[in-house]
């Protein structure tokens, strides 16, 4: 009887989370997948089923290939630069016991700025060849002929990613610092007594201890990289000449400019697949860690 009561209580307690998951995750996901197989324009009463036509069109679209390449570049940049800078700064802050809190607050300023503010700062004050830092450097007359990096075929996407990385790195720093501070003191003390220097401490004590956090953040970065949208939309809208296109900007254009909700849904499904792959590897790695 007690067991039965307990089960009912468990079900009732589970219900709110289940209700939220079903209503805001599962049902919209199923709807999105179904929409991706239709030519729905977003407001027609009927949705015409067209099978995988949207996906075939997407795979043949040259701008899709540019977007995939850009999303991968975005992911690789985020998996390296902000991770290294965030980790490095976290290690430095770990040594600063008195000023740590103050410095954390200062470093977090870019993270708390609204994306539109950050984007405007970089567009107008850094990258602008007519009034920004680029203009200033060109005016020095030392042989520099710098262009607006946002218009570059090769560096456009890197220039936009740089803005997002400037905004994002301090968030990683805070997460890494919190994890580093959980490292057992006895392990550190024992290593120090054995004469370990700081690199040895990092690679043999700190890093193994914060490995789950590093894994988790890396997986999150992969997922976020395939969902990236706001900075590109704010700074270039995927242009010029589609050089800075991402999957999300293509989805947005399909949905709101071309009114192809079916196509936009197909882009969303493709974006989700990348996230699912990342989540799969994370789950697998977590299970392995638990077994170990």
């Amino acid at each position: 009887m007690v067991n039965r009561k307990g089960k009912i209580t468990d079900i009732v307690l589970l219900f709110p989370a289940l209700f939220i998951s079903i209503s805001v995750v599962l049902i919209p996901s199923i709807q999105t997948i179904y929409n991706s197989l239709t030519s729905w324009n977003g407001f027609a009463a009927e949705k015409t089923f067209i099978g995988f036509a949207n996906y075939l069109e997407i795979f043949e679209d040259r701008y899709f290939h540019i977007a995939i390449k850009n999303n991968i570049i975005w992911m690789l940049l985020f998996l390296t630069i902000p991770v290294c800078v965030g980790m490095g700064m976290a290690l430095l802050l770990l040594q600063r016991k008195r000023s740590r809190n103050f410095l954390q607050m200062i470093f977090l300023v870019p993270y708390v700025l609204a994306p539109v503010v950050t984007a405007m700062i970089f567009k107008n004050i850094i990258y602008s060849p007519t009034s920004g830092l680029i203009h200033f450097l060109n005016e020095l007359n030392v042989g520099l002929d710098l262009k607006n990096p946002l218009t570059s075929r090769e560096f456009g996407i890197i220039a936009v990613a740089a803005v997002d990385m400037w905004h994002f790195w301090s968030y990683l720093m805070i997460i890494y610092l919190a994890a580093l501070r959980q490292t057992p003191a006895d392990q550190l003390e024992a290593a120090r007594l054995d004469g370990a220097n700081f690199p040895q401490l990092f690679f043999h004590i700190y890093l193994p201890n914060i490995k789950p956090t590093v894994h988790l953040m890396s997986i999150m970065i992969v997922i976020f990289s395939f969902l990236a949208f706001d900075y590109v939309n704010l700074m270039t809208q995927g242009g010029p000449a589609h050089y800075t296109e991402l999957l999300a900007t293509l989805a947005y254009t399909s949905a709101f400019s071309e009114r192809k909700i079916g196509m936009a849904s197909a882009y969303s499904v493709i974006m989700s697949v990348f996230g699912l792959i990342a989540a799969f590897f994370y789950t697998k790695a977590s299970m392995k860690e638990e077994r170990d």
Partner: protein
Amino acid sequence: MTNLKKLLSLLLALVMVLSLVACGAAEEPAEEPADEPAAEEPAEETPAEDEPAAERKQITMWFWGASDYQRNAMQKWLIDAYNNSQEEYELVVEFRSSVDSDIAVALSGGGGPDIVYGSGPAFVAGYAAEGLFVNLDSYAEQYGWKDRLVGAFYDLCTVEGSLYSIPGGMSNFGVFYNKKVLEDNGWAVPTTYEELTATMDKAIEAGLYGGLIGAKDWRYTNEWPISMLLTSVAGPEAVYKVLTGEQKWNSPEIVEAANEMVTWYNNGYMGGEDYWSLDANEIFQYLVDEKTPFCYAPLNGFQWAKGVAPDDATLDNIGFMLLPAKNGGDAPVTLGAVCSYSINAKSEHPDAAAAVLDYMLTAEFASGMSSEWPGYWGMPVVEFTTVDPADYEGVYAAYIQACADVVAALDAGNFGYAASTCFPAVTYETSIDIDTVWFGEQSVEEYLDSLDEAYAEDVEAGSIGQIPMPKF
């Protein structure tokens, strides 16, 4: 104790579920809450506004995030004017920076405001076909809109012969010039296309920008040179035939216009590489600061000029002219509206919403708004030609005159087409890819072939709107 904990947990779960249900239910009411600028403007000036808002039925309208002086003008000439004209309804305008996507989402979900702001008549066709907008034919007859609107605009707003929207202010593209720069350099105001390009070449030689357009904040600014040069170089007849499927995009007249777009970009007639580093306000700042003799923009340019000019004297240096036709003849205007207004099929007060639209189609409203917010509210009404520019000063007079000239040209059938207003959705989106030609990613022919494919897609989707026919 354990039982008490369980009971508390159950209660908490129940509260959460109820909260969610309540949140869902709160989204149901058909009328949108009013949480906006009406509150920012003092309402005590007028007796009608002294009445409690609850006693009046609300007519809602969403609009883009206008600046303070623009909101003040709307408050005075639209909101207060309408609210004071009767005692039954209250017009509430909500300013939203993401109005386009907000409206698309709201309409898809069966909601949205009573008066639907749209990006232009081309935006309306799909929604009208699905019955999301009210058929305005009966109101057009009741208020005589067919006679009051410029014919080409009335036709443009129809879908399969029925009216589903009214146009916003005219957005004819043209040339803004700085009289002082031209005078100081001994250059005359160009009267032909060749004179214009020659003057731009001289300006570049003199260390100025030849001309300016700015796409820093909005890649879709590409539609400006597209609309202008299709109208001026390809000419109204060719573009009409292309938009009605009688002629391919990849045809000699359009190829010539597209090549001209490349020439303009490469020659620096649109600011060269700085095209991507300047926005609309900045190009007008440069025009006012005498860094260029010309800016190319829709009539909205008057509002940008007003926004950046330090004083009226500087503003008076700015003139406006139509872009001359490359192959001679009278300069055609571009048939374009800054936006469109429709009535939501879900509106509970369509008659009152129609009365608001009717008020917007008066010269009193258009000239009143334009006297404080030049550039945006030149409604395409025939009555506009009766407004005397002499009653206004400086740039306001120039704007009123420009509107009257455009109305006269439209009436004479001498017009081409603005891309955002007249191109169907996929064709419009593809046309913006002219920058891929500028950057050497595809040839003019490939670009025009892609436009033919896009147009075929629009035909298949049934999204080709009514294209008014110019005289040729």
